[in-house]
């Protein structure tokens, strides 16, 4: 539990920030020691939004819990504090391939809560683990045959019988591994998704998708396999996959060629043939050497309603209607000013960055990350968009988030605008999460986690 030490250094700031989209937001910054292992690699709210889990490059999972409202501290409502920290994955070495298997947590998914305990799945490149997170605030005392430390008593000293009782004790959060789903992926696992039947989940790597039962670790069903017989013929990989939120037979996966495939498990056991293929025809005038790289889908998310799909590629976020395969319903430019810089972004490898995207609770706003610690929100109804910055330097505790504006080269530059040339491409927001019902968002900026909260929800307003 050495890693716990890092979190004792937590510095907390609380900001109230104002967003153009009538969202004002509260922020905590949890600054961890700057270390590569601390870089946050995934963020995920549970189904109620009470818990928020982050995974990092060091294989750790940190769970935050939303504090209940307190009268003495009026601003504490909705604050998320560290609830539990544990080491989920350790670095391993693949002796057959002479390669290291990183401990980095690629994805975390919560299972719907069914009893007092919480369960979550975490995965690195190869191995998926099921963890149980439970609380204990009572301990049994007064056993007849063993003492307080659990040692068996000398039977001759037992002269009377007593009924053991539960005594209160300090709250303890226990995290225990329940299942390890290993040895099923040859390539790197990029997605896990729990099915709406609550019994199965899938895991996707670059070329295959497996279906698991949550109770069975020694067997999984391969439901998609796009590996060609000859690897020289390989031109496309799976980049993300997700189950439909309501129909347990439907799932979608995205590819490096910019397509989405909706599959129906009722049609066949092996879903190599998709039910629907979502693809936007290429604009020949915009064609360049980077066309394919920038159209590679880095994330796909079903809307809460199950009607729409949100995808992110390098420059845009797109909303697709499940009933329209020919083109996206809406296309949002995340940072179009980078279009002229693709060669440089290719040179410094930024063009391969995998940005994720998120829906708000009512499917009316979408959010996704960008460079320079900026993240973007798009209101689907009003078509308004805003650029916000997750940084301690530019914000004060409980301040209102100020919209930022990037000025494209040659454009008119206003005060406080930042020019494209001064964007910091090492500060990227890849992972974001939106509370399932409220306007609370979690933004992972390198090794910092920012939680912004809608001001309307807090007592301040």
């Amino acid at each position, binding site marked *: 539990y050495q890693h716990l030490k890092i979190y004792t250094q937590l510095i907390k700031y609380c900001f109230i920030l104002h967003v153009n989209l009538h969202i004002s937001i509260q922020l905590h910054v949890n600054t961890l020691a700057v270390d590569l292992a601390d870089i946050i690699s995934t963020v995920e709210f549970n189904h109620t939004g009470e818990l928020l889990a982050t995974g990092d490059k060091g294989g750790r999972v940190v769970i935050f819990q939303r504090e209940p409202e307190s009268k003495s501290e009026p601003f504490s409502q909705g604050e998320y504090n560290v609830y539990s920290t544990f080491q989920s994955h350790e670095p391993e070495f693949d002796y057959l391939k002479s390669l290291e298997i*990183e401990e980095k947590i690629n994805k975390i998914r919560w299972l719907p809560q069914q009893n007092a305990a919480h369960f979550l799945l975490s995965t690195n490149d190869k191995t998926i683990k099921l963890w149980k997170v439970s609380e204990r605030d009572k301990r049994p005392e007064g056993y007849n045959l063993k003492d307080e430390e659990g040692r068996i008593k000398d039977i001759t000293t037992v002269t009377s019988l007593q009924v053991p009782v539960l005594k209160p004790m300090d709250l303890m959060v226990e995290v225990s591994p329940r299942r390890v789903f290993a040895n099923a992926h040859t390539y790197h696992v990029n997605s896990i998704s729990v099915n709406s039947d609550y019994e199965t989940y899938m895991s996707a790597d670059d*070329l295959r998708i497996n279906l698991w039962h949550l109770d069975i670790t020694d067997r999984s069903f391969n439901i998609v396999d796009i*590996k060609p017989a*000859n690897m020289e013929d390989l031109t496309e*990989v799976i980049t993300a996959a997700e189950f439909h939120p309501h129909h347990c037979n439907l799932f979608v996966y995205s590819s490096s060629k910019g397509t989405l495939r909706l599959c129906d498990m009722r049609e066949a056991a092996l879903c190599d043939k998709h039910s629907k293929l979502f693809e936007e025809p290429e604009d020949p005038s915009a064609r360049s050497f980077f066309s394919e790289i920038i159209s590679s889908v880095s994330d796909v998310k079903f809307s809460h309603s199950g009607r729409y799909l949100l995808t992110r590629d390098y420059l845009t976020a797109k909303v697709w209607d499940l009933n329209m395969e020919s083109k996206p319903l809406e296309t949002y430019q995340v940072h179009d000013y980078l279009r*002229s810089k693709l060669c440089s972004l290719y*040179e410094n490898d*930024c063009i*391969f960055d995998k940005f994720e995207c998120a829906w708000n609770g009512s499917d009316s706003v979408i959010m996704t990350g960008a460079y320079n610690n900026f993240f973007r929100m798009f209101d689907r109804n009003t078509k308004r968009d805003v650029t916000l910055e997750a940084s301690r330097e530019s914000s004060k505790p409980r301040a209102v988030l100020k919209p930022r504006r990037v000025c494209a080269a040659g454009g008119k530059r206003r005060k406080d605008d930042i020019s494209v040339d001064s964007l910091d*491409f090492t500060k990227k927001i890849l992972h974001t999460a939106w509370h399932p019902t409220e306007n609370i968002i979690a933004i992972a900026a390198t090794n910092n986690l920012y939680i912004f909260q809608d001001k309307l929800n807090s007592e301040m307003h």
Partner: protein
Amino acid sequence: MLGRGVKRKWSCLEELEAEEVPAAQRQRVLGLCLEKLQRYQAGMELSLRRSVLLINTLRQIQEDMRSDGAGACTADVLLNGVHPDSCLLRDDFREDMSVTCPGCAEDDGASLSLSPPLSPEFPSQEENVLPDQQKSLPASTISSFSDAVNAMGYLSDLALDDIFEDIDTSMYETSDLPSLRSPTHSSPASLQSCLMDLNELDHIMEILVKS
């Protein structure tokens, strides 16, 4: 990746980007593609997504060059442009094919069966190992070069289970394997028998490349 590109002079790059004519940009992208693929060879298991995207970009450049009516000469000119000394580039390739492979048997086996396009550049050694694969030589330099890159890109991603599949089969059909399997496929027979030769070849390559 952190820190990469931080110190780059963006202004210079931009000017370049703005002024670049298509051919020059193509050449630059080509050079970067090769550089990236080579760089990834040495280290960790590279992301399959990234290598597929890089190699598709290379394929596209190849298409682009073909449609420009560029023959083998143009390809050579381009390659020369990327690296001042074209021999150096070829050496780099060989190095990647045979020396910087992480040393696992699977990879060596694959590079062996996929390497014929490169053999004309050093016939003496390779002919010994792959005498019957010379026929499969593509005519144009462009395609041989991109085939080589193809092979490189996926070497480190070669699926272990598939190799084992192959090896299992080989237990039952070792005698007639050479005739049954196509030379371009990673054949277990050659994998087994040529391992020794390959190690030797690696040493020779190392000496050749370093000298």
